[in-house]
């Protein structure tokens, strides 16, 4: 049943992908200021949403892991971490391209971009810790994920106050008409893709853990040595 649901959602995401592509290039009028480059906006902001969500998922899963000592949560945390790194990378690429079009420079110390970059660095650190942490890497990574997730609002506010000289209105509510629907459709698209990748990745780390546990149990039972 789960398998079927998975492919149903995969199908939906493919359809939604075509539909959003069509909407983005045809359905929405050109932005007065940015003309064509504004089109990247429909992908850039949803990715940032996914990055924030993935970090929160990793934090909560890690918290459950250390409180309940159950390997399954650790798999979810590891998966969420890796997917967060992926979406963070996508967000930074699209962000800098939009920056190039909007402000003419590849990187702009804009509050939101900086916060996302810091979050992304956190998750890259998370991957490093998982890879080089040695035997206690899982608990160490869990600690980092928990502290990292708690850190999100603090990073957001401190960077926001540091970087925004003038509080400019956030772009999202300003959209109207077809721009708005397209935007929220792309957000939906990315949420689905995020969940799909997450589930696949969780399955994988679960298998890895189970293989390791089988090997360990076999060792305990003296079967292997």
């Amino acid at each position, binding site marked *: 049943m789960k398998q079927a649901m998975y492919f149903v959602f995969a199908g939906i995401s493919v359809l939604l992908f075509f539909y959003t592509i069509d909407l983005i290039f045809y359905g929405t009028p*050109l932005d007065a200021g940015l003309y064509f480059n504004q089109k990247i906006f429909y992908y850039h902001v949803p990715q940032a949403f996914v990055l924030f969500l993935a970090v929160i998922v990793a934090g909560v899963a890690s918290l459950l892991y250390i409180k309940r000592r159950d390997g399954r949560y650790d798999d979810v945390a590891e998966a969420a971490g890796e997917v967060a790194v*992926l979406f963070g990378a996508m967000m930074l690429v699209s962000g800098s391209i939009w920056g190039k079009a909007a402000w003419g420079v590849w990187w702009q110390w804009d509050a939101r971009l900086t916060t996302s970059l810091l979050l992304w660095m956190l998750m890259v650190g998370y991957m490093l810790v998982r890879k080089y942490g040695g035997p206690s890497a899982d608990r160490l990574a869990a600690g980092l994920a928990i502290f990292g997730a708690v850190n999100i609002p603090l990073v957001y506010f401190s960077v926001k106050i540091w970087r925004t000289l003038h509080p400019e209105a956030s772009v999202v509510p300003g959209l109207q008409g077809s721009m708005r629907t397209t935007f929220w459709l792309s957000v939906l698209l990315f949420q689905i893709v995020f969940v799909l990748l997450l589930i696949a990745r969780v399955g994988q780390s679960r298998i890895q853990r189970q293989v390791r546990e089988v090997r360990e149990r076999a060792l305990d039972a003296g079967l292997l040595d």
Partner: protein
Amino acid sequence: MRRLYTILSAGAVLGLAGPAVAQNPGDTPAPAAQADPATGSSNRARSSQSPAGGLAAVSGEDAAAAPARADGGTIPPAELKSACERALRDDAEWREALGRQLTGALLASLDQRVDDAEPDQPAKKRKLEPWVEQLSTEIERKIHQRENRAIQRNNNHVIMAYAALWALVLGFVVFMWNRQRALKAEIAQLQLEVEEAAADDE
């Protein structure tokens, strides 16, 4: 029909939709091309003026009086015009010189146009032949239109972005695929080990 075609192409290139941006009205960018009512008329005005007079005007001095014939009578304009055309046709060098002078004047007018735009510059108004004025506005409009279309068209820039994003996702999926295969191999290997060990124990 055009949209369907684009969607298929988008699917084929996974988001690399190469949309031929239809010039549907909804799409025309904000800076509407100012339809220049005068263009039509300026062509007619130019042909009536004799090129020689135009030449003088181009170099900025006042228009000289009509040329006199050796025997004191004035040369009728039509004869003058055909002689000039013949000369232009035969003497390539002169034609080229004339051309260069003409473009020089045009460039001067465009420069002046830029100067006028400068807020702090004192507007050095130089009297230019009207047809030169029109020609330069027309060129300027053409440049603007080309810029405009380029901006509209510079989707390669944005398409590259979309492509990069989906390439990243694809890369991730491939990366997971390989890891999946490695996992399957490890499981098979573990299976083997366990069976062997079980066999030994009996």
